[in-house]
């Protein structure tokens, strides 16, 4: 592992030691975060899978009955029949915080059901009634699925990002800091030993001179 290019001084050593402490702490926190995010993700993804399976079945059947209806009615009549809907869906949108990821929360604001079928029953077949009443039931599920699927998407992204951070700390930052701290400590110790030897040597020399002067 490469060490950081710094001057081997006491000040630098102290600075690096604080950085190492922060890095280790951050690493632990991020690892905990990863665990919890994955747990949350699992809850959402199971919900997502279940909802999507149900939704796909239901929407497909709606589409099928709509196709049947359009087979017996002329395209113009069909378009005319649905072209003036009696109402429009209103949503209540907000965001909530899941593991510091802002995820959407959506719900349909219930409106007074004025008229579900915006056409006269004389002009179109009963399959259309079926498909439209089914569809308005599925719509709630669709909106719920939209919310859950988006949450899963965002959580998956967050988990991936988080994993990169954890790995960067674990395999780059922390070893680098440790290596550098070791290098500085060794260097300082070496200097210290050098200093001691020099002092001993000087002391010997002084003593030798004093001996000579006396003797």
């Amino acid at each position, binding site marked *: 592992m490469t060490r950081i290019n710094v001057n081997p001084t006491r000040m630098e050593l102290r600075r690096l030691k604080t950085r190492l402490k922060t890095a280790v702490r951050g690493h632990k926190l991020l690892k905990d975060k990863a665990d919890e995010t994955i747990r949350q993700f699992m809850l959402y993804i199971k919900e997502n*899978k279940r909802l999507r399976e149900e939704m796909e079945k239901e929407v497909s059947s709606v589409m099928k009955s709509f196709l049947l209806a359009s087979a017996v009615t002329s395209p113009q009549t069909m378009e005319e029949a649905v072209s003036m809907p009696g109402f429009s869906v209103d949503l209540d949108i907000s965001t909530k915080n899941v593991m510091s990821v802002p995820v959407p929360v959506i719900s349909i604001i219930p409106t007074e059901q004025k008229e579900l079928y915006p056409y006269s029953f004389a002009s179109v077949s009963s399959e259309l009634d079926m498909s439209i009443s089914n569809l308005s039931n599925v719509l709630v599920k669709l909106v719920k699925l939209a919310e859950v699927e988006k949450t899963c998407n965002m959580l998956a992204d967050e*988990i991936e990002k988080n994993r990169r951070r954890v790995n960067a700390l674990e395999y780059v930052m922390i070893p680098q800091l440790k290596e550098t701290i070791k290098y500085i400590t060794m260097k300082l110790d070496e200097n210290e030993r050098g200093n001691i030897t020099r002092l001993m040597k000087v002391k010997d020399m002084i003593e030798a001179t004093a001996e000579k002067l006396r003797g």
Partner: protein
Amino acid sequence: MERNNKIAIIGAKENILPFKAVGVHVFPVNHYFEAVEVLKKLARDYSVIFITEDLAAEINEILDRYRAKPYPVILPIPGAMGSTGYGMKNISHNVEKAIGLDILNIK
């Protein structure tokens, strides 16, 4: 960024017509590059956008752009031909991204 609280749907006309009757704003397109144009415009205003799976599969890269923000929510739904498995593939892709292995066994 002012969003209206409405739902929009993009797709081939015959697939999305029934949604009009239940109060969803319908935007029929004939080809996927048309869908891209419409989607870009709608993404500014609508909070929830449905798109048929066959179109979604074509413009996957564009959809990726909207993945990072909470809104708009873009949801692929099956068309008249039934499910193409695009939506399920997305789920398993997410699982793989998060955990590294598709543990739900979605094909």
